[in-house]
């Protein structure tokens, strides 16, 4: 019946074309310093498993065929226990699992111990968005890293538990509210790889994706400098749009007129809103600024006061850019 499995898998592979992610039959490509040792252990355990699986199934099939019941024939007599044999097949697995444990632990220690000179990036998870905070204060929605340099991620969550997972690096670490968790890696191949949220976190859990962009030698610094200057190089409206996307605003505020967790930002500037406390307000620069810094001070009727504050997370110039973006006519906000 394994044949049937493999027929199924084979069909699956044919349908997809060979090596959909440039990896092997079992694993995605190896793009970090630990990936090789993880895959080595995976293959080691796989070899042991295949050996024992074939042993069990072959013995089973042979016994079923050889000792199949025939008319009027009783079972042959054979001992109902054999202590030496039973101790043997207890001790052999013990030795095997000790070996597996040892290699697993050794590999894990390498994954858990970052080198002292690692480049540090702060990561924040929130429903359903990753933010990567570079040492110069720049924040991006994707993880950009230099190749061949240890990178350490210090991670926290704004709401529920998330988990940062990069299959190509073989790393995964939960991101827990109320504490910092850390993970490190050293990428070995420039390219673009997938980053998933691996801990279930609600409606758009499966869309909480990001890319890991591994830059070739020397190019990471150039990218970071260019990206960090977006407030200077872009128009305020474009910079505001970028911030609106990157900093998690659009997770709750749509640009198409539909209400999500928060009110839509389509044509919000100048609109008169009913407040939860009964009053009304006409949205202007000051109200937008207040809603970013003290979001739950005055909440639009019909919405829960659940937005986290951006106090200390956005600079004045960035807030100004977002306001300019929200002021811009709808056409400007639908370019992307």
């Amino acid at each position, binding site marked *: 019946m394994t044949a049937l*499995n493999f027929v*199924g*898998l084979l*069909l*699956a592979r044919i*349908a*997809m074309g060979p090596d959909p992610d440039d990896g092997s*039959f*079992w694993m995605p490509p190896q793009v970090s310093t*630990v990936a090789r*040792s*993880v895959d080595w252990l*995976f293959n080691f*355990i796989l070899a*042991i498993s295949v050996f024992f*699986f074939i042993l*069990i*199934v072959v*013995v*089973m099939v042979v*016994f*079923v065929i050889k*000792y199949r*019941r025939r008319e009027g024939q*009783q*079972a042959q007599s*054979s001992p*109902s*226990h*054999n202590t030496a044999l039973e101790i043997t*097949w*207890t001790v052999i*697995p013990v030795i095997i*699992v*000790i070996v*597996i*444990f040892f290699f*697993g*632990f050794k*590999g*894990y220690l*390498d*994954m858990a111990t970052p080198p002292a000179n690692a480049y540090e990036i702060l990561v924040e998870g929130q429903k359903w968005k990753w933010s990567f905070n570079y040492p110069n204060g720049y924040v991006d929605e994707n993880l950009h890293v230099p190749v061949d340099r240890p990178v350490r991620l210090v991670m926290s969550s704004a*709401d529920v*538990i998330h*988990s940062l*997972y990069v299959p190509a690096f*073989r790393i*995964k670490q*939960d991101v*827990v*509210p*109320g504490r910092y*968790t850390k993970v490190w890696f050293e990428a070995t191949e420039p390219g673009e790889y*997938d980053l998933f*949220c*691996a801990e279930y976190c*609600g409606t758009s*859990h*499966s869309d909480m994706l990001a890319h890991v962009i591994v830059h070739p030698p020397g190019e990471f610094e150039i990218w970071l400098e260019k990206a960090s200057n977006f407030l200077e190089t872009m128009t305020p409206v474009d910079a505001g749009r970028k911030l609106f996307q990157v900093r998690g605003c659009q997770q709750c505020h749509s640009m198409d007129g539909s209400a999500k967790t928060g009110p839509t930002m389509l044509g919000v500037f100048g609109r008169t809103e009913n407040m939860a406390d009964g009053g009304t307000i006409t949205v202007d620069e000051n109200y937008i600024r207040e809603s970013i810094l003290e979001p739950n001070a005055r909440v639009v009727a019909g919405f829960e006061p659940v937005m986290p504050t951006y106090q200390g997370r956005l600079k004045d110039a960035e807030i100004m850019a977002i306001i300019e973006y929200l002021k811009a006519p709808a056409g400007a906000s639908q370019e992307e």
Partner: protein
Amino acid sequence: MTDATTVLTGDGQPAGPGQRDSYLNHGKGVLSWLFTLDHKRIGIMYLAVILASFFLGGVFAMFIRTELLTPGQTIMTADTYNKMFTLHGAVMIFLFIIPGIPATLGNFVLPLMLGAKDVALPRLNLASFWLWLIGASVAVASIIIGAVDTGWTFYTPYSTTTGTAVVAMTLGAFILGFSSIFTGLNFIVTIHKMRPEGMTWFRMPLFLWGIYSTAIIQVLATPVLGITLLLLIAERTLGVGIFDPALGGDPVLYQHFFWFYSHPAVYIMILPAMAIMSEVISVFSGKHIFGYRFIAWSSIAIALLSFLVWGHHMFTSGQSSLTNMIFSALTFSVAIPSAVKVFNWLATMYKGSIRLAAPMLYALSFLFLFAIGGLTGLFLGSLSTDIHLHDTYFVVAHFHYVMFGGTVIAFLAGIHYWWPKIFGRMYSERWAQVSALLIFVGFNLTFFTQFVMGSHGMPRRYYNYLERFTAYHQASTVGSFILMIGFLIMAGYLLHSLVRGERAPANPWGGATLEWETASPPPYFNFEHEMQAGDPYDLDALSWDPSIKGYVRRDPSSVLAAPRGAD
């Protein structure tokens, strides 16, 4: 036993003149069932509601697999999908697989194997069933009042902040926990106090060892789940900060509490399955079980070790490297007793006289699937590989191979093994073979593909997925439909058997345990004589009697306690 030669008529018909009394016709009407203290009727009622739960959980599973035919929306929204996988997990775990074997087959067979009239505490047994009904009703009510979208694990702080009916579902699980504790307690007392003459601890059928080990876990671990769920409810309703960091709590603490129960619970699920295996393999190989003591001790070892390994669910949670190391090492220790059992079962078949009847087909399926399930556990117990595989479809495939390929398949082996005893009817062997084959093929196609997509990085609980995983998902979905067809065929021939099945003899398979010494279906009082037990695997003591199409004891007096002889 002359019962075996009596014409058997007990199939729910009133016991008129000339009809033999059986538990099925002893007392009529719905109330005679709902308030019965008879372990057999309680077992049947459990069987009915648990199979209904399995059907419900299966429907949710089919919705999940159908949705996953394409990336993005196929038939439902993301929120509905999230509720579907939560309900699938919660119903399958709490309503079906945890009570599954002990409450149905355990309830029916355990007192019979002891040659006893009933369990030690029949009222507690009925209370357990009623608690199950109440707990299940509360849990199912949560579906009606908005369902739950947390996953069956209810991880905080998601579960304390989501807007869905978490309190109702957890309250249901809390009540179901008590049902489970009552059943376990009852079985422990029964096995301690009601073994017949001649049945020392090491002459108990291995089924009883398995059920006994399970009961120990049920009684010791389930209260922790109860407390945890109460704390969760307290946090949600009263705002007491225990798990939510926004209230000063610790979300990882919840995971420790939850897995302190839920890992041992995995063994609540698999130990009874192993218990069935030991009976079926021996009887259908026509041979004494090989290495009785090793199998018995391995059940106890699994029960005890199961309490020490919960941290392996949390290797990526941020717990310390030292903690991870200890839990990884302890986790591997559980692999040993499972391996020992598999080798002993194989050795039992050596030089046997193997009959490929339906129960044995399922037992062989079990060996195949459980081998895969167990061996893939090695990848997950090992730290560095688990970091990559944790929370991917590799884990989903692994636990389905153990829980479905192991427990459900063994449950089916047990159902087919004891069906003639329970209902006094045989089923269609041919259709049983067809469905066993379809289930085996469908299962492997569904879940083996998930190993490969998991190791390629496909995370679990994903509504949407990257294009490159599409073919795996579609293969898996096709498998699930084959699986479904297999189960529908089974439902068909089993229902047919209830009405039209050939009458079953007392001992259709040649088992040497005491339940085969009474009629099929058993009379209300189980046995006409006080029984005594010999070696439960001395199959040579039985011989085939073609006139009744069943086995009879060569020396019927050997299992009768009082020297009265056969009547």
